[in-house]
């Protein structure tokens, strides 16, 4: 019995160490990002201490702002999960923006067409978004599996197809009485916003999306860590050929992984267009898909990491305006500071390299 327990403890310790290491790395990356942002503020003659003070106050100073931070983070959680999920299968999903658009379009279409009571309508809309996003990503997945078309190229192009599809569909079928450039307003019974939730957070934009997001963080974690499907997906990601010779169908898993990734991004679209926003505008490709890449990198491609990274990004986006208003930092510099923080935060892989090399060296000296 004893050796067995020892082995178990050892295993546990190994798991603990890896988890710790990943979070430490992400933390270091964030600190680096903040330092780089501070350096930029200094270079432009601003005080980074007051800058960051107002940035964080802007995102957290009252319940309304906390609510807005969470609301801003919600679509990012989904796009982050989407990118991370594909990453685990060795696929690079740059198309989360387009999948979001289609998910949003599907949800909007259902919401504006059906006049059902809220508790019945919302699940249908959310499901429509899931299906829309999933189908949108399944195509590049299939192209990759069948013809080896690189998914980066295919998903980028699908972004623009989505963009122009929305551009055509919304004014044609869902436009309001006057404007050619946006859909009708989403009625309350089709919106993810809930009056009680809005007033609980002092008029914030927080909506049911955050709970759906939390649910899917859990679902993604379970799929990846606890199911055969997740095991196969990851195996394909680690080594395609090894997975194949082990009897795992690589093609099936590529299509499946892209579909799930797309479905997640599509859900993000629903939370954005019928939750955070109140209608769908044409001519805008949401930036969430690209932020999602940074979120996934910072979150070490784990669902929980993505959750944390998204909230951090939501905080940055929400606090930025308050920082602008309270300091002399102009919006353009603030945008650059945000980009710098994100850039450095996303280099956690670089930090990891340096870390391992340093440890190897220290080990070598001894």
């Amino acid at each position, binding site marked *: 019995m004893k050796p067995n327990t020892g082995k178990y403890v050892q295993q546990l310790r190994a798991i603990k160490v890896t988890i710790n290491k990943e979070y430490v790395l992400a933390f270091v990356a964030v600190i680096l990002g903040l*330092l780089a942002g501070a350096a930029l503020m*200094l270079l432009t003659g601003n005080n980074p*201490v007051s800058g960051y003070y107002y940035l964080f106050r802007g995102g957290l100073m009252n319940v309304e702002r906390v609510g807005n931070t969470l*609301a801003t983070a919600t679509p990012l959680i989904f796009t982050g999960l989407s990118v991370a999920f594909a990453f685990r299968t060795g696929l690079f999903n740059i198309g989360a923006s387009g999948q979001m658009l289609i998910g949003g379009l599907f949800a909007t279409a259902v919401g504006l067409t059906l006049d059902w009571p809220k508790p019945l309508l919302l699940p249908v809309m959310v499901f429509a978004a899931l299906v829309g996003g999933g189908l949108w990503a399944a195509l590049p997945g299939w192209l990759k599996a069948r013809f080896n078309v690189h998914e980066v190229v295919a998903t980028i192009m699908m972004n623009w197809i989505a963009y122009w599809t929305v*551009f055509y569909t919304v004014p044609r079928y869902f436009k*309001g009485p006057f404007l050619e*450039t946006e859909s009708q307003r989403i009625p309350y019974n089709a919106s993810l916003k809930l009056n009680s939730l809005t007033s609980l957070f002092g008029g914030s*934009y927080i909506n049911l999306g955050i709970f759906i997001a939390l649910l899917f963080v859990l679902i993604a974690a379970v799929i990846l860590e606890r199911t055969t499907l997740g095991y196969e997906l990851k195996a394909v990601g680690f080594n395609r050929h090894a997975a194949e010779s082990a009897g795992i169908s690589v093609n099936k898993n590529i299509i499946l992984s892209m579909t799930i990734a797309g479905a997640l991004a599509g859900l993000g679209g629903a939370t954005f267009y019928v939750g955070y926003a109140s209608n769908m505008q044409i001519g805008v490709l949401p930036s969430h898909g690209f932020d999602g890449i940074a979120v996934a990198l910072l979150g070490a491609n784990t669902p929980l990491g993505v959750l944390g990274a998204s909230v951090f990004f939501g905080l940055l986006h929400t606090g930025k*305006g308050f920082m602008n208003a*309270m300091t002399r930092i102009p919006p353009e510099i603030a945008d650059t500071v945000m980009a710098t923080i994100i850039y450095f935060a996303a280099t956690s892989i670089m930090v990891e390299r340096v870390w391992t090399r340093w440890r190897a060296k220290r080990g070598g000296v001894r």
Partner: protein
Amino acid sequence: MFKKGLLFMLAFVLVASMAVGCTSRTNTGGNGDGKSEDSLKVGMVTDAGTIDDKSFNQGTWEGVVKAGNEFGLETRYLKPVGTTEAHYITEIGNLVDAGYKFIVCPGFKFETAIFQAQERYPDAKFVLIDGYPHAGDWAPVVAANTVSIFFAEHESGFLAGLATALELQEGEVGFIGGMEIPPVQKFNWGFQQGLLYASENFGTNVTVKAENVIYQGTFDNVAAGQQLAAQMYDKGVKAIFAAAGGVGVGSINEAKARAKDGDDVWIVGVDVDQYAEGIYEGNKSIILTSAMKQIDQAAYDMIKAEKEGVFPGGEILLFTAANDGIGIPKENPNLSADVMAKVAEAFNMIKNGTLVISDVQGDLIK
């Protein structure tokens, strides 16, 4: 190696903290966070596009800055992360929380945001340019702390069209619009009426084909503006009326490049006098004339009214030829004196009501 890195870090931190000390000392007092409640602080939230878009945002901001300098007011603009109602309200909230109680918002996209903000922040005042607050149902609700401002773009477009036709005498012209929204549509319809008026009354032969009337769909896609202009010029169009914000900047760039090569191409500017933007050699500009809206004047007037205690809250103001709210620039180096005289005559006829320009499409193109 490691020691070197540590030293570097240490040096960096030292320098950084020194710099922090310096800036915080020089910045004291002027940090914008002084709680001087009595003095008016004027804020602005930008619409899609940048503050230096050479048209809408810039015009508004120049008016704000002018008033700020004249009355010694603190001014600040914020740039929203996106273009949804939620993004706009977030930034309005940031300004209000930072003590900016007079807020100018350019663009119809602010309509629903201002509708909520005017109620939520009763001690703040709002100026909405090109739109009126409503709940999403287009029933105007202008509260006592809000002024909404409209311009007679059709009259401005008419004068620019008339000037273009008289100056060119014959040939093809085109129109590039940003989004297909009322202010841009009215520019287009007015422009076409100006061309028709010139041919009926002065025997000119300047026409526009349906294929050369295009709404690009955004206000910030510079590359697309350049491409559309290139296509039109290739088809033999001599002058393009670009009512498209940043898209128009692309068109101006294309015209400048062609003019440098000796081509005979022109752009009709929009919103502000864009002559300076079109200079390609010495003081030669490809801007024939500009269809102006006195946005800066409107913003300035409202701030002045507030300072004098006569803020026209609750009203919808209309800036037309009758109150010199629109027109073409006083100086147009590319127009002959004869053309200027004829345009001035038409301007006066509009002013005294003998000439009425339609603000609906009728038989006109798009």
